[in-house]
């Protein structure tokens, strides 16, 4: 379905010294540096999969999406989607994809939302009957009815995002690209949008590629993630694999019988742990310790704790994906381990 092979994109960036003087200097003697925004990325996505594309800000996520959607031309490498090369035969290719950029809207700003859909119907040559069915389906999934007659500029961000997603799906695309579809939305709207995406994927088998900073999106929607950092792929696999490989962080939470006992706990020295390996937080009698179970076994941790203090209640759980990814972003886990 989607084949990406050794894809790279370089940008030429002018280096300017700060201030007006620097700008003037750059005008006469420009200095350029080549920035590799995307550096040899390869992956494959089968039909119907939902792939989460994650990475810190500036990692090159959007650049990859823009190459896949035919907006940018790769410096080297290839991508092929549904048998099309996006940059060649662009018009035919984009008919089969839907694109949503969370940061900007593709709706007609000053017109009633309804008008946007009727224009898109013409652009994509959707027959009347199909258009009606499609609108009914999108209406049901994304609840557009409340605001379909309002001018787009008056919509709230949540309404606009729902409208944008509907707009990208009107022509029944085979692949849907969502670049940060839940950015800036409240919990309820996020939930709605996730449900809608899930429903569309389940009912129509639409392949979805999604970038996000909200890891809940990833956990709830995607079965697979590709993580990139500084233009390079650092992880590609199932979320469960990621948890298994990197999920050595555990949270130990307990309530002390006697609040003063906390001074008796000295994990770092007694168990020889560094700052990276463990972190202790306490609020009155409640103590929570996050530790790396590679460095110190759960058993040692528990027996040490119980030997030092009396507890009312104790509880141990896996750290969530957010913590794993935070560690990956910070390069605490090296790429070699993948």
């Amino acid at each position, binding site marked *: 379905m989607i084949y990406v092979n050794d894809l790279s994109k370089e*940008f030429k960036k002018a280096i300017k010294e700060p201030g007006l003087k620097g700008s003037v200097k750059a005008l006469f003697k420009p200095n350029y540096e080549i920035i590799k925004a995307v550096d040899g990325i390869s992956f494959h996505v089968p039909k119907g999969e939902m792939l989460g594309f994650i990475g810190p800000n*500036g990692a090159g996520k*959007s650049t990859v999406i*823009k190459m896949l*959607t*035919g*907006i*940018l*031309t790769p410096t080297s490498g290839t991508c092929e989607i549904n048998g099309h090369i996006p*940059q060649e035969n*662009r*018009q*035919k290719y*984009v*008919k089969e*994809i839907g*694109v949503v*950029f969370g*940061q*900007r809207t*593709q709706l*007609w700003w*000053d*017109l009633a939302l309804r*008008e946007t859909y009727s*224009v898109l119907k*013409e*652009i*994509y*040559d959707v027959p009347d009957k199909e258009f009606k069915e499609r609108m009914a389906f999108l209406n049901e999934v994304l609840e557009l009815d409340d605001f379909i007659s309002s*001018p787009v500029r008056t919509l709230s961000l949540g309404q606009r995002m729902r409208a944008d997603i509907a707009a990208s799906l009107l022509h029944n695309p085979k692949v849907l690209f969502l*670049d*940060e579809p839940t950015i800036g939305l409240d919990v309820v709207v996020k939930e709605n949008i996730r449900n809608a995406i899930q429903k569309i994927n389940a009912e129509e088998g639409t392949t979805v590629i999604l970038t996000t900073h909200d890891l809940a999106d990833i956990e709830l929607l995607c079965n697979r993630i590709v993580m990139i950092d500084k233009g390079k792929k650092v992880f590609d696999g199932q979320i469960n694999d990621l948890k298994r490989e990197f999920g050595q962080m555990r949270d130990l939470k307990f309530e002390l019988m006697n609040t003063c006992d906390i001074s008796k706990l000295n994990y770092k020295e007694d168990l020889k742990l560094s700052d990276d390996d463990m972190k202790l937080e306490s609020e009155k009698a409640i103590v929570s310790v996050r530790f790396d179970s590679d460095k110190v076994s759960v058993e040692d941790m528990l027996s040490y704790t119980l030997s030092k203090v009396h507890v009312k209640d104790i509880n141990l759980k896996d750290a969530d994906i957010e913590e794993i990814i935070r560690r990956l972003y910070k390069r605490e886990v090296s790429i070699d381990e993948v």
Partner: protein
Amino acid sequence: MRRMLRLHRIFVAQYMKNLMEYKVDFLTGAISFLLGQVIQIAFLGIIFSQIPDLVGWEFNEILFIYGFSLIPKGMDHLLFDNLWSVGYFIVRKGDFDKYLTRPINSLFYVIAEKFCVDAFGELLIGLILIVYSTVQLKLTITWYMIPLFIVAVVFATLIYTSIKIATSAIAFWTKASGHITHMFYMTNDFSKYPTTIYNKFVRTFITYIVPFAFTAFYPASFFLTGENPLFCIGGTVLASVVLFTISVCIWNKGIKAYESAGS
């Protein structure tokens, strides 16, 4: 082609609805434009009240040339005005993304999106000047003048448009090129007067390099004198076809260099 025309109609309809949302803005634009034109013509009148003729062309002939120049300029303004925005901000802000993710030709899409109604002022004044000066000069109109006039206007319009396409496409490399477009576009002012009043450099420039002379003086002089149809009309067609081909090539190359904007 049929699909394009239909889409164009739909885009225009949407744009008109848009315009109606901002009526005051639209009216102010139209009135200021009309005022600008009236002042320029009044200025011509003042000049000719002091001099009998301009290198052999009398006042009414100059009016005809001036009026003719407004027709292709107005047509370009009416239909292809959105190209300005490409050079000024669409590329710089990364908004060009939207044109590339639709299954229609990006150049067509940009152009069709806007329909500049202000241009009717230009077209109206142009027509009034042509009719007025034709009557004053008692020009005889032969039947073949009509189709030739239409051909001249169509291809002259394309010269304006091509220059705008080529110069706005520069933005794909430089991020912004509105001022470059402006610089080239403004040389069209030279074309409103007989080229013979200029020195050799300007004459060569507006004939062979940025061939604005073919948008007004050359075709208009044919309609006034009936001389040199091959150069005056044929030249307009040739110049515009060559220029259009080049500018579309630049545009297509530009799209490959487009870098979008960070998000």
